[in-house]
């Protein structure tokens, strides 16, 4: 016979101690980026050229159970021919310590504008991908992922 009463009694202790854990684990090691940092990083890369929110699809799981390794896939609507191809895709975060996650450089040999990797996400956020085409035009897309907190955070 399991003793539910005893288990419930410890729940209060978990709540108290767990509260401490949440507070500690949410203390930033260094300041997180915000939307303004993302925009600054984007300007550093592409200047003030106009960006159209089209043609770029960012695929991320709706929920990530651990922010250390989240599968990311980006695809861009492009024929990928010798004179019309995606030159670069930049992955940007509005919440990580650094807003620039990575850059992919494609060539006409790439054949298909689709790239996948695994990224770190320090919390729930919308990851943005900006694609620069061979004609210099810029396109963007973004997707939000909820990053959940693990049960027992080992500090």
């Amino acid at each position: 016979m399991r003793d539910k009463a005893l288990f419930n009694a410890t729940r209060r202790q978990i709540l108290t101690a767990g509260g401490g854990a949440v507070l500690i684990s949410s203390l930033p090691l260094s300041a997180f980026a915000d939307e303004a940092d993302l925009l600054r990083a984007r300007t550093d890369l592409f200047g003030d050229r106009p960006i159209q929110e089209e043609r770029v699809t960012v695929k991320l799981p709706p929920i990530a159970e651990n922010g250390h390794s989240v599968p990311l896939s980006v695809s861009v609507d492009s024929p990928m021919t010798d004179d019309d191809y995606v030159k670069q895709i930049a992955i940007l975060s509005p919440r990580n310590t650094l807003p620039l996650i990575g850059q992919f450089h494609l060539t006409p040999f790439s054949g298909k504008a689709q790239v996948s990797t695994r990224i770190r996400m320090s919390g729930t956020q919308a990851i943005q991908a900006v694609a620069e085409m061979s004609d210099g035009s810029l396109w963007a897309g973004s997707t939000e992922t909820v990053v959940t907190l693990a049960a027992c955070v080992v500090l």
Partner: protein
Amino acid sequence: MMRWVFASGLVFVAGCMSEADNPDSAIIAKEDLQSGFSFLTAETQRLQTDEFENPAYLWVDRGADLFTHSTDASPACASCHKDGLVGVAAQYPKFHESSGELLNLEGRINQCRTEHQGQAPWAYESDELLSITAYVAEQSKGMPIDIEVSEAMQPYVDKGRDYFLTRRGQFNLSCQQCHTENWGTQLRGDTISQGHGNGFPAYRLEWQLIGSLQRRLRDCDTGVRAEPLPYGDPTYLAVELYLATRANGLEIETPAVRR
């Protein structure tokens, strides 16, 4: 507000197992046994089952290399174990009559190193020991854990069971309270697993590395704010054996991916 967050993250729902025919209440009925795999998100499951993308295979590759090539004068593992070690990991931890000790797979590999290869044992969590243990265990992937408890092993099983049932740490929680009584329920963002070691050494997203079952046990102890035991501690060995008996019949998944 904070209080509400904690409360909602800690919804404990009553366990759902029958204990009728089970003399050991910490044992989960065979038909309810579920690997940690079934408590992962689809994306993490895919990472495990994709034998290219599963990062733990980077260590399995190194293990294969260590197994087949000797880096010094000592004979390579493969010079004796010509056909590999298929099925061996499913029987560990095992009591070794000759030496009179209980050995986990890591311990058995180190016994080979010291007795047959004239080498110093590899340290716990060293890259070499993790790699070769993962390589050997991977050869049993898909085979059910098959532990037969002999008379000599019973005291170790009892000791491991005792650890499993004992409340510890600031949270005053036993392994049993989460992993037998509340598996399948939510603890913050996680679904509580049944606490089986059938995927270890495993790649944990948390570690961003492969690690041993004892590292996992140390993290569990730390998680309930208890002082973890040192690597290789006889009590952890006994816990490993108890966990294996508790997981009897579950398939080996090494190298698994876990949260």
